[in-house]
């Protein structure tokens, strides 16, 4: 049986319209052989979690540059918990100050990638840290 491809949801939470990074990541993941679902702009945490469950993804990558990360990223983790889907791993990227990272990790975000990180490094992290869900 062929190995199941890793399924990743790339999401843009909140009102932030800067999607260059999200789209580059989505495309790089696809080139890496992952299956990618991109939500498009202006998604609430509720919409992102519903899409992730419906699409049966293995992990969620959230891109955010608006400064609302401390509110919106933990909310996604909380909703996954409530829907008994906390095994879907969540990671984030964008303009996120170092100081905020410990709090985000405590809230359940597995990793935060700040500007300048290569798409290869992020893909490598996913391969190492995201086991396909069963």
């Amino acid at each position, binding site marked *: 049986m062929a190995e199941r491809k890793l399924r990743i949801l790339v999401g843009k939470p909140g009102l932030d319209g800067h999607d260059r990074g999200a789209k580059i990541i989505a495309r790089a993941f696809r080139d890496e052989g992952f299956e990618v679902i991109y939500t498009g702009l202006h998604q609430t945490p509720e919409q992102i979690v519903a899409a992730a469950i419906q699409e049966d993804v293995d992990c969620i990558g959230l891109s955010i540059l608006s400064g*609302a990360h401390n509110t919106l990223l933990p909310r996604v983790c909380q909703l996954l918990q409530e829907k008994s889907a906390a095994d879907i791993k969540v990671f984030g990227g964008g303009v996120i100050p170092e100081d905020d990272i410990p709090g985000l990790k405590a809230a359940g975000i597995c990793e935060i990638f700040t500007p300048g990180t290569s798409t290869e490094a992020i893909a490598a992290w996913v391969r190492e840290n995201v086991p396909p869900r069963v």
Partner: protein
Amino acid sequence: MSITDSKQKWNETVVAKNIAKAPERMAEFRTTSDTEMERCFTPEFNYPGYDEQLGFPGQYPYTRGVQPTMYRGRFWTMRQYAGFGTAKESNERYKYLLSAGQTGLSVAFDLPTQMGYDSDAAMSMGEVGKVGVAIDSLADMEMLFDGIPLGQVSTSMTINSTAAILLCMYIAVAEKQGVSADKISGTIQNDILKEYMARGTYIYPPKESMRIITDIFAYCKDFVPKWNTISISGYHIREAGSSAVQEVAFTLADGIAYVDAAIKAGLNVDEFAPRLAFFFNAHNNLLEEVAKFRAARRIWARIMKERFGAKDPKSQMLRFHTQTAGCTLTAQQPDNNIMRVTIQALAAVLGGTQSLHTNSRDEALALPTEDSVRIALRTQQVIAYESGVADSIDPLAGSFLVESMTDQIEKAAMAYIEKIDKLGGAVEAISQGFQQKEIQDSAYAYQKGIESNDLVIVGVNKFTIKDEAAPELLKIKEEVESAQKISLTAMKAKRDEAAVKAALAQLETAARGTDNLMPHILNAVKTYATLGEIANVFRGIFGIHRETVVL
């Protein structure tokens, strides 16, 4: 006529007339070695096609600049933009800036305000006051401009899908100060096409958005004549990853779409075209950027004259604001960003910009600190007052490289514009995802270039250091959101609900029909109907836009 003769004629007529009105900064401009810096250097030999391709500053096709004396008369406007938190906090910052001698304001709005949501809307959670000031109703706008004489300052507002509402609030505040709409001046960005293509703060579908925009053009022509009704923006197209050629091509194609729409709405081209302004990015490749600005001016002049038959020279002049490229700033070794911004700012000045915002070194990390903003402003001042590049107009003209690159950018951009015309114009091409796909391909190639080390980013993929010291960053307090919600609730308790309902109903009727929307928005705003309530009326009738996702 030889170039030397033409130049003498230009100096004696156009320049002399201009200087009589506004003298140059100095009687003579000289280098440290006492060599005279001429106003405008020209070849002393036969330069084929000089008049058609270059001409003189302030003359068609405006390749060498839109004013006859350019920075020898007055430097570009150093317009740093600011806004954060609540209206009260931003008001204090503006008063400080004005007391420090600034004559124009530039307002950054938070994302809920840009997207037509009140601070208490579910979609606003976490975003209130973050990237700009939160405005829910006229009450906030009154606070924002409290004690600021709107008859004397000019205000630039970075606002697009809700530009009509914010402009009406501004008009209403001015009226309360006793300043009539024909006395106020400023700019609204109001460029929705680039939002669909690159920046993402759109609400309604393109056709309805274009109606709102042409309503603004028509209303302002009659009632707010000193207002710049649109700033057609390539900046965000470049930030989304386009090349320099794509930036020019897609921006000017948007410009064509606005002019077309306004003409279709019954306006005469020379009635509104002089109030169109542009906004470009200044990226790292210095000489390509200079060529880009020169090419953009020449293309627009030709489009306006030849395609639209514009007669007023002001309709043919491409005036533009520039911002240095935020996307080139790195989180690694942030002080390196100061050098990047310097090169980019220099490109904007050598390219003849009318105003400039220089980014701060820490913007890849957070909103800029006060210290960083000052360094960014000082960068402009050093270029203006110390470098000497502002002492002669269009100093790189005649460079084999720059002229050749200007021609090439013009040619490649025109090829894109023709392609967009064939697809049915900018609006149609955007709905097919054409520009988005082109931009994303460029963005992806750029990123791959960095990752393969073909493109060097100093401090990121070369000359890196371990264990950098963390810089100090600006934080926006989370309390802004709760404070904003409380004042919104208090405002709603005081207003006349019946008047609000009636105004919103009237607005709805207008939106269903073909009336100009502006008087109805103004009426609603004055009853303290909120930004979210007004935007919701339009959402109900116009619907909302969903992007064409192309990866």
